[in-house]
């Protein structure tokens, strides 16, 4: 009996340490993207281990923060668990641990429970949508390409207009510079007749205003 209890305790501890993989598995199945524990955790391999962002690397203060986060059963508590990333902490804040754990059997219901209001990385894509897309809610450079493109186009419209204008002006300048240069060196170039003779030895031709020469 004692051994059974120990095994059960061990399994519970392991479950805690490995995080809640149901969400990750569901996202993996629903999208064409592969995801890992970094969806909500500080480390891609999950909370178990001794690398930065994993339980084994925590100092006394880190362990206190972790314990405080583990006590946040109800929504509304601001948590800063060192083994979670900003999205993971926000989930606990919005749903509470109880609410989140209750969703384990229904990972598809997570976006509705979490809501579309928060966008932690300010990339224009709500965190819940990023969960559905299998992208990172904490990285402004990662998101569904089309959504990211449309948002960034809106945000950077002024910059893009300025760059467009600068490019046009630059090209206008180059246009005139080259035209002037061509005129200045025109006396050194062969006449049209000579030019045509050189390019169309069989028959000469006539020059057009757009710089093209037609062969006869």
């Amino acid at each position, binding site marked *: 009996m004692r051994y059974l209890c120990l095994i059960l305790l061990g399994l519970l501890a392991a479950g805690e340490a490995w995080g809640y993989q149901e969400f990750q598995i569901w996202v993996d199945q629903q999208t064409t993207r592969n995801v890992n524990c970094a969806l909500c955790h500080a480390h891609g391999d999950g909370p178990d281990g001794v690398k930065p962002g994993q339980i084994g690397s925590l100092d006394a203060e880190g362990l206190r923060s972790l314990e405080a986060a583990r006590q946040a059963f109800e929504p509304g508590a601001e948590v800063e668990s060192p083994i979670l990333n900003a999205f993971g902490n926000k989930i606990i804040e919005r749903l509470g641990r109880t609410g989140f754990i209750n969703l384990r059997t229904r990972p598809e219901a997570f976006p509705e429970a979490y809501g579309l209001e928060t966008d932690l990385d300010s990339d224009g894509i709500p965190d819940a949508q990023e969960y559905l897309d299998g992208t990172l809610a904490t990285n402004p450079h990662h998101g*569904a390409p089309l959504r990211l*493109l449309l948002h960034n186009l809106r945000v*950077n419209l002024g910059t893009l207009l300025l760059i467009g204008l600068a490019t046009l002006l630059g090209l206008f300048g180059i246009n005139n510079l080259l035209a002037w240069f061509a005129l200045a060196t025109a006396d050194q170039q062969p006449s049209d007749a000579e030019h045509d003779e050189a390019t169309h030895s069989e028959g000469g031709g006539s020059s057009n205003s757009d710089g093209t020469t037609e062969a006869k």
Partner: protein
Amino acid sequence: MRATQCLRSGIEFLAERFPIEKMNVRSMVQTKTVPVHRMSWAYYMGGLALFFFLIQLTTGLLLLFYYEPTVSDAHASVERITEHISGGALIRNLHTWSASAMILTVQLHMLTTFAMKAFVKPRELTWISGVLLLILTFTFGFTGYLLPWHQIAVNATKVGLQSIEEVGAYLPGAMSEWPGLIKELIQGEPSVGQATLSRFYALHVVLLPLAFFAVLGLHLLSVQLHGMSQGVDRPARRTERFFPFFILKDAWLWGLVFLVLFVLALCLPFEAFFSYPLFEAYDPMGSTPDGIKPEWYFYFIYYPLELLPFWVVMLAQTAAMVVLFAAPWIFKNSSRRTLGILAVAAALYLVVMTLFGQQIYEMFKGGA
């Protein structure tokens, strides 16, 4: 006697390809004309490839200010560039998008040049230098891919280097050792590590650019000396002056392409197309994420390697390289129609393998 004859023919060959009497501004710029016909758009591909190379050079130099080529700091320095350096994300995205655009343009340039039979006498060396530039461009891609030191970079490089070693199994006697030695020479240590990163860094930022400049100089000189090839069977009815009209159109095209590139770099990070675990810092002790693949421009060889016996792919690749280098002599008497069909077939292969390689792989291997 025979040696003297060989030397004389060699000198004559070079004199015909690099005529000294044409090496002046008047001949190479002022009187140069460009044929105007239905394939004229292809004349802009080389210039466009050069434009992307210049973007690579400029953005690459800017990235050098902050990038740190050590296994402990490389990934962090790239993250720093992307997230903390002003304009860093834009410069990095410009570099990434432009790299892909350069490879695409160089491939298109080669295919159109082939279809237009622009490699025949006296342009054989222009073609060969172009093939060298294509290989150098791919090598730029391969070496640059490792530098961010993330999961996909290191693991894909390992796969790439491993395939070099596998060639040894098909070579006789002592030659079978050579690929392994070459791999070790490139890698610098038993596994991909600091020595590999240092070597790839040196190749990417010093040796390859120097080699590229040298070959590019030869290529451009050759292009300017011989002018644009006729390109179509019937001589074009119209021509336009290279200077200033063709250059002006080139400049406008560069401007337009720059705008498109800028929009992409500012609004669409290249990494958004991939799963994020692939861009985490490489951890030799950690788990390897799914979906490790080389860059898209290597799919044309990656998927065949996954599907077919190694020797078949190597044989095909060697044959393709020989045909590429010897094209001016092999296809000397081929019609442009035949060359066009071959170029379209090659383009179709590249497009299908790049876009549908994964589906083809799953079809034959039954699931990813």
